[in-house]
């Protein structure tokens, strides 16, 4: 047999068949935390090469090797592309490892399995959240181009990623961007006939068709997420930070308008269309809200954030967009600055600290909007960004209810440290493992592994009513704290201020 005997290292060669032991690697540092496994930065002892080890935890599995890991491995073995993370090998440990004392219960322990990936220094969210860091326009174009190239490759090969978000886009110090975490990915057939679960994609990046309960869908779901990321890069923060499904849909409607048979033929046949039908139609405001983006960026974004998935731009056409072929052109990845390693797992901690400080300040002053935690990109025009995004003083809303403040000033629950809201896939991080930790609104409805039949209709659009004065054209009565109907009765969903409960300039 080609494998080394137990307890014996086979450092000489990688066996053609069979897997090596994790002992071939020296763990250096944890760089990510998932619900059922950790991710470590490690060094291969024989070569000195730095890699990332993603643990697939095996205890707790009644049905052997987890099917989610099988999906991920199958897909990763199939995809070989410079913008897709490379699975180098799979290694095993035969028994408990040094850091796992005490887990040995009832002889259930079977050792661990690790997926070995090439090491990447950053993830996009971690990088974007670095205090003081601003991306340049050529840099954003460069990342977007790589993201689209990698995604186009996946789609051509009939793989849907289904969890595109900043923390799953890894960036190395050569400026290369790679798609990672294929734990929710799956193959699709060209005809979109199979029924797929709609409980995928982290809430803020989830497209309207999934929120409306569609079970037949295609690559367009990933393109919506790309649109959200694109806008986020230019805008400086997440554009659609909903706390639960109804609110998410509402935020989408406020930005992209309400869907109807005209702008989205067939939408009324999607399962929950009726349930989430807003009281009154809203107009599409993408071009108005993001009017300060450059023209080509806005054109592309508009096509990505198209409600009707069949009309949404595909990765290939997006790569052909004027945006990527007009000055300033996307830069060469290698020309990008090198940053000290950052992953969301790490920056999250820093941000948490920062946020606590901010809250403290707020409580003391009972006052105005929070600073952007990210800086928007450096504009070529050199205009001050406050003009673009509405700086700290953009809010003309005069009255801020004391109650709102009080609520905002409340200490955050444990969920507050997560960047991503409950209801999506938990946490971000390097090669995140998942399972659904839900929490908050939808916690009860998430079964393990995050794949589930449609959730019961626990929330409807009416749970986020707008105040009577919150109609169109009238300055809505947003307070600093609650974005929805400050005077209404539906504040319940805002009670759990699990996320950055920020002010959004475009919602004025």
């Amino acid at each position, binding site marked *: 047999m080609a494998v080394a005997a137990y307890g014996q290292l086979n450092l000489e060669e990688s066996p053609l068949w*069979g897997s090596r032991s994790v002992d071939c690697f020296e763990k250096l540092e944890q760089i990510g935390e998932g619900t059922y496994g950790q991710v470590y930065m490690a060094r291969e002892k024989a070569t000195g090469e730095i890699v990332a080890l993603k643990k697939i935890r095996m205890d707790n599995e009644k049905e052997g*090797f987890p099917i989610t890991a099988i999906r991920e491995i199958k897909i990763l*073995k199939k*995809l070989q592309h410079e913008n897709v993370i490379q699975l180098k090998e799979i290694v095993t440990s035969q028994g408990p490892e040094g850091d796992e004392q005490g887990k040995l219960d009832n002889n259930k322990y*079977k050792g661990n399995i690790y997926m070995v990936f090439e090491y990447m220094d950053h993830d996009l969210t971690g990088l974007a959240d670095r205090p003081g860091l601003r991306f340049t326009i050529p840099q954003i174009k460069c990342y977007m181009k790589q993201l689209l190239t990698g995604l186009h490759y996946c789609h051509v090969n009939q793989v849907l990623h289904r969890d595109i978000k900043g923390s799953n886009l890894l960036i190395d110090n050569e400026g290369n961007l790679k798609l990672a975490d294929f734990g929710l990915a799956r193959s699709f057939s060209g005809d979109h006939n199979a029924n797929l679960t709609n409980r995928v994609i982290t809430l803020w990046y989830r497209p309207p068709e999934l929120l409306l309960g569609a079970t037949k869908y295609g690559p367009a779901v990933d393109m919506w997420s790309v649109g959200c990321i694109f806008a986020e890069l230019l805008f400086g923060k997440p554009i659609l930070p909903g706390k639960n499904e109804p609110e998410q849909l509402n935020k989408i409607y406020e930005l992209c308008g309400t869907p109807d048979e005209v702008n989205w033929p067939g939408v009324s046949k999607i399962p929950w269309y009726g349930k989430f039908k807003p009281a009154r139609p809203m107009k599409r405001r993408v071009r108005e809200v993001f009017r300060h983006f450059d023209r080509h960026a806005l054109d592309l974004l508009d096509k990505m954030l198209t409600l009707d998935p069949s009309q949404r731009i595909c990765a290939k056409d997006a790569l052909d967009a004027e945006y990527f072929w007009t000055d300033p052109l996307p830069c060469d990845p290698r020309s990008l600055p090198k940053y000290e390693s950052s992953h969301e797992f790490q920056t999250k901690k820093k941000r948490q600290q920062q946020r606590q400080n901010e809250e403290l300040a707020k409580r003391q002053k009972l006052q105005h909007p929070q600073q952007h935690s990210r800086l928007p990109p450096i504009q070529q025009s050199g205009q001050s960004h406050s003009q673009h995004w509405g700086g700290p003083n953009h809010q003309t809303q005069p009255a801020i209810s004391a109650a709102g403040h009080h609520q905002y000033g409340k200490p955050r629950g444990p969920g507050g440290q997560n960047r991503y809201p409950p209801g999506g896939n938990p946490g971000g991080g390097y090669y995140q493992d998942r399972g659904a930790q839900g929490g908050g609104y939808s916690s009860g409805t998430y079964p393990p592994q995050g794949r589930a039949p449609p959730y019961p209709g626990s929330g409807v659009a009416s749970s986020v009513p707008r105040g009577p004065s919150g109609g169109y054209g009238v300055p809505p009565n947003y307070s600093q704290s609650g974005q929805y109907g400050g005077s209404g009765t539906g504040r319940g969903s805002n009670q759990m201020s699990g996320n950055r409960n920020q002010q959004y300039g475009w919602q004025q």
Partner: protein
Amino acid sequence: MAANFWTSSQYKELLDPEEVDVVHQLDKDRGITLDDFKLVKLHMSNYVARLAQNVKVRQRVVATAVTYMRRVYVRRSMTEYDPRLVAPTCLYLASKAEESTVQARLLVFYIKKLYSDEKYKYEIKDILDMEMKVLEALNYYLVVYHPYRSLSQFLQDAGMSDTTQLTWGLVNDTYKMDLILIHPPHLIALACIYIASVLKDKETTAWFEELRVDMNVVKNIAMEILDFYDSHKSISDERVNAAMSKLAGRC
């Protein structure tokens, strides 16, 4: 570009018949001959198919499971990896890989129902443990390209849709041999179509010519299949039992 057969590990790992027909030293020591080796694999392919009928999974899952089993025995001995455990384990793993999950306890239930023989008796824990060993033996390569995918397209194109059932059955039977480890799946599909066209007196010479595939290879595969059918007639239960009895038993 990957994600197609030509860049897959299956293509890169296609083997020569000489590499497949190797009896592991440990097995030789037990007196297992090449014929025995082939018979056991044939018998286990049938075992997988019978189990699959009971737990009701698609033919594709059977094909993948049998391919896994055959891949395992290219590198592993039957002495260390009891085929009576490896076969159901491969079906278990294939059911997950092909998105038709079968619960381990259901599999164990039907194993007991089908075979009262103690030697076949394995519990859930045994299957789960063997699953890890099989995964390792497969080097975690779980994607298998099968002839089925190209079959219906070929048949339609050749104007032979009326022989679909016959051809499909021929393809099923190829899993009783090691063809899937040796030849690209579309050539196996073509060989089956070739046999069907001869049996049903279909004129397909022009169609095959247009394909620009190496007809010698296709005909050779077809001959292998026909040889197998010939020799299959002479296989008796006694011969199978004799081969099975040389196995070590529970591992």
